[in-house]
């Protein structure tokens, strides 16, 4: 019988080819039409250290990293010992026989990967030996990998042909090694390629690309895991006249820089992680207070303080929505897939322009560096919004930027330096022209104005399914995929449970909030101790409860399904006790 879904894990020390093997296998599969998702963990050090990178391949869209490993490739003994517990019954380990030996008789076989690679005349083809062996164990045609190799190494250089040939030899020798071991893991069903064009990209790159497509002008940032890749991407790609990218001296300088650029009329952005977000707190308050557009991306890791720089957690939500002292609640967009990262990056810039203020995008370690093949964004259909700029020249000092209210469906225009309507953007409470005032009527009017503006953003898209059910599952951010997998399992079990999701956490789409408020129970699976999103939902009159995990790792679908099912059953029996149903 054919299987539609396999999980291959490569584990070893950093530098042993763990990540390159996984990436090559993922690309091989994606190029012939499988859906893939990668997931990696590595320690916070420059070289070496226990590293793992895995690829889940499927004939349909992959929702989560996957629970149980079908094939483990262990580059050293420590990797074997650590990851064995995740190997499913019937799974097989390929181990690096140059590094260690295992007693005969177990579900494993050793290969002298480097020695085999050297025999092809190309010592760097070791990862192809491994991939050939993996492919053989699941009956994946070697043509697929050979096609990948041909594409990868055809770079118009004289040595191309020799590199391609040695790699193909390595693939075949790897496959031969697996065949002679006598092991077999399963038969991979043929791919069902999508009808639309795809790109293969990481979450952080998709986010950066989305922002760029929406017209980003100005990016500054400070290196911090796991947001550094956004800075590096921008330094490489946001180039040309009128674009500015710079590595600044701290996150305090970064937030100041993007606020200054927003004030001057440009679309500006920075990306950071928890510690940097903390440093940006006061600046975000200024941007909210003085109504200056800018976008901050928070790529969450474990916290607080330095926390877990290379692990995943969803514990920055409160800090993102309420980053500053005083009455502040920032717009927050939290994409739940690599594809959504693209649109979150674009929409955040649109929102900042539209409501003239700061917008937060929340990404997360597990989604930042994982690769997925996604539908290629159609830029001709991407909505790009630009600032409504004050242009009238009739009364130089007459225009009052902070006067009563925005006009109709959009904000009053914003004056820009060089143009008419000079004003002072002020972090102190101010009057209509931006001058400092402590009079109660101004503080009341402007506080209400800053919150009322959020109405302009409440038209976000959302998902709702089986919404008539009294109980909904509502994940947020990168937990979306695994929660969806669990939700589908619950429906298959016959549980009366519905689904709600949006990446627009603040403000929530108006209709979605009304729907949530009608429910008896909204269950939020989330990766933090306090249950931050359910708390924020309860604040908005939604009867929400969390299922939490705070291990630094993502949820596993099987475990989450079990915990959700228990919670739903508990609720159903309490309804029965209360006589709501019989």
């Amino acid at each position, binding site marked *: 019988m054919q299987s539609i879904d396999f999980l291959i894990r490569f584990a070893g020390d950093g530098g042993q080819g763990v990540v390159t093997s996984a990436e090559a296998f993922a690309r091989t599969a994606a190029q012939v039409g499988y859906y893939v998702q990668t997931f990696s963990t590595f320690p916070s050090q420059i070289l070496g250290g226990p590293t793992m990178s895995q690829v889940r391949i499927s004939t349909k869209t992959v929702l989560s990293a996957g629970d149980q490993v079908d094939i483990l490739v262990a580059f050293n003994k420590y990797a074997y010992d650590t990851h064995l517990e995740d190997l499913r019954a019937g799974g097989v380990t390929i181990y690096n026989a140059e590094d260690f030996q295992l007693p005969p008789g177990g579900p494993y076989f050793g290969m002298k990967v480097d020695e085999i690679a050297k025999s092809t005349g190309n010592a760097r083809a070791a990862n192809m030996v491994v991939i050939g062996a993996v492919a053989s164990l699941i009956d994946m045609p070697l043509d697929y990998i050979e096609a990948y190799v041909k594409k990868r190494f055809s770079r118009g250089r004289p040595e191309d042909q020799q590199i391609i040939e040695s790699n193909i030899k390595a693939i075949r020798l790897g496959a031969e090694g697996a065949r002679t071991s006598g092991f077999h893991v399963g038969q991979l069903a043929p791919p069902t390629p999508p009808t639309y064009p795809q790109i293969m990209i990481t979450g952080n790159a998709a986010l950066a*690309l989305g922002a760029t497509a929406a017209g980003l002008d100005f990016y500054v940032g400070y290196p911090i895991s796991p947001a550094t890749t956004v800075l590096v991407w921008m330094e490489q790609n946001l*180039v040309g006249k009128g674009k500015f990218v710079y590595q600044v*001296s701290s996150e305090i300088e970064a937030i100041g820089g993007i606020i*200054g650029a927003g004030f001057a009329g440009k679309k500006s952005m920075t990306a950071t992680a928890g510690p940097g977000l903390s440093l940006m707190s006061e*600046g975000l308050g200024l941007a909210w207070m003085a109504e200056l557009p800018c976008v901050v991306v928070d790529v969450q890791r474990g916290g607080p303080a330095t926390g877990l720089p290379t692990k995943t957690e969803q514990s920055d939500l409160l800090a993102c929505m309420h980053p500053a002292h005083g009455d502040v609640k920032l717009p927050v967009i939290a994409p739940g897939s690599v594809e959504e990262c693209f649109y979150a990056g674009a929409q955040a810039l649109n929102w900042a322009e539209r409501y003239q203020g700061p917008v937060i995008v929340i990404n997360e370690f597990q989604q930042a560096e994982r690769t997925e093949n996604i539908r290629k964004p159609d*830029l001709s259909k991407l909505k790009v919004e630009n600032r409504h700029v004050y242009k009238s020249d009739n009364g130089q000092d007459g225009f009052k930027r902070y006067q009563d209210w925005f006009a109709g469906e959009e904000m009053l225009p914003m004056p820009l330096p060089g143009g008419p309507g000079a004003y002072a953007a002020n972090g102190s409470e101010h009057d209509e022209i931006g001058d400092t005032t402590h009079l109660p009527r101004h503080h009341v009017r402007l506080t209400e104005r800053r919150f009322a503006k959020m109405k302009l953003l409440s038209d976000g898209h959302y998902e709702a399914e089986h919404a008539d059910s009294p109980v909904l599952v509502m994940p947020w951010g990168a937990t979306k995929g695994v929660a969806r997998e669990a939700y589908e399992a619950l429906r298959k079990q016959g549980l009366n449970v519905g689904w709600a999701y949006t990446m627009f956490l603040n403000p929530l789409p108006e209709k979605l909030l009304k729907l949530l408020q009608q429910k008896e129970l909204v269950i939020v699976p989330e990766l933090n101790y306090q249950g931050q999103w359910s708390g924020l939902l309860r604040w908005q009159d939604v009867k929400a409860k969390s299922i939490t995990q705070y291990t630094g790792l993502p949820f596993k679908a099987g475990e989450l399904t079990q915990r959700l099912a228990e919670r739903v059953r508990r609720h159903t029996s309490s309804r029965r006790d209360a006589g709501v149903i019989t």
Partner: protein
Amino acid sequence: MSARNPEYDFKWCPGCGDFGVRRALEWALEAYDARHEQRHSMNVIVAGIGCSGNMVHLLEGEQPFGLHGIHGRTLPLAFGVKMSRPELNTVVVAGDGDFLSIGAEHVGPQAQRNLDIACVIMDNGVYGLTKGQSSPTTVIGAKTTSTPYGKIEQELNPLKLYMAMGVTFIGSHYSSKPRDLAKLIDQAMDHKGFAIVHVQSPCTTYNDTYEQLKGDPKKGIPPLVYDIPVDHDPTSRQAAADLLDRPGIPLGVIYRSEQPTLEDRQDEIRSKVKAKTAEQLVASYSL
């Protein structure tokens, strides 16, 4: 109250040095506008928090754009304004507390980049708005509300700090000669690069130094301020260092150096990289 706004509820104390600095800044901006034939709205004043920062609301006549941000962060904000819109004349106004205590970390990086802005720093040697605490330039031994038995920390010499950090235009003056100060600020705005005009601007309430600055022959007090000798060569680091080793407050340009600005370097390198369109970038991820 301010010139345009009777409800504005901040005012400087009578005799505050900041009055003179304000007038000097207004004159300097006027001269700069006229010479560069630019609209007044091309000027952006980035103000710190403290008595001096309120200047942005107290300017008289035609208003420039203002950005009155948070304590200590004038330079990051000015960096964003300048590098996103290099054509704007960007001027920082801040005090010794804002610029040299909480905001000191930002001086070095902008000096190394040679960011093309001018900073007018009003040094009154005290935190006035919070009612008389010690600041980095308060002299050692001084009694303030936060050092009731005397300050036990050595005072900072801001001009030497600017030299050490590589600031490319360093001017020094005091608030009692607004015409001369205006000329110095104008020169700083015209300087291609990171310019600081450090102004002694006394606080009549908490640290009245007028007498020491100007001197009083009747009391036998020699003036602290002195005109920089006409033969001083401001393009020489050594001459500038020698000048700063002299006691007192020099009036004029201490140091000036022509270096490429951050914008020049940006133009030379990054702006020449071929622009990548969003379509090309998306296509680069095709399978």
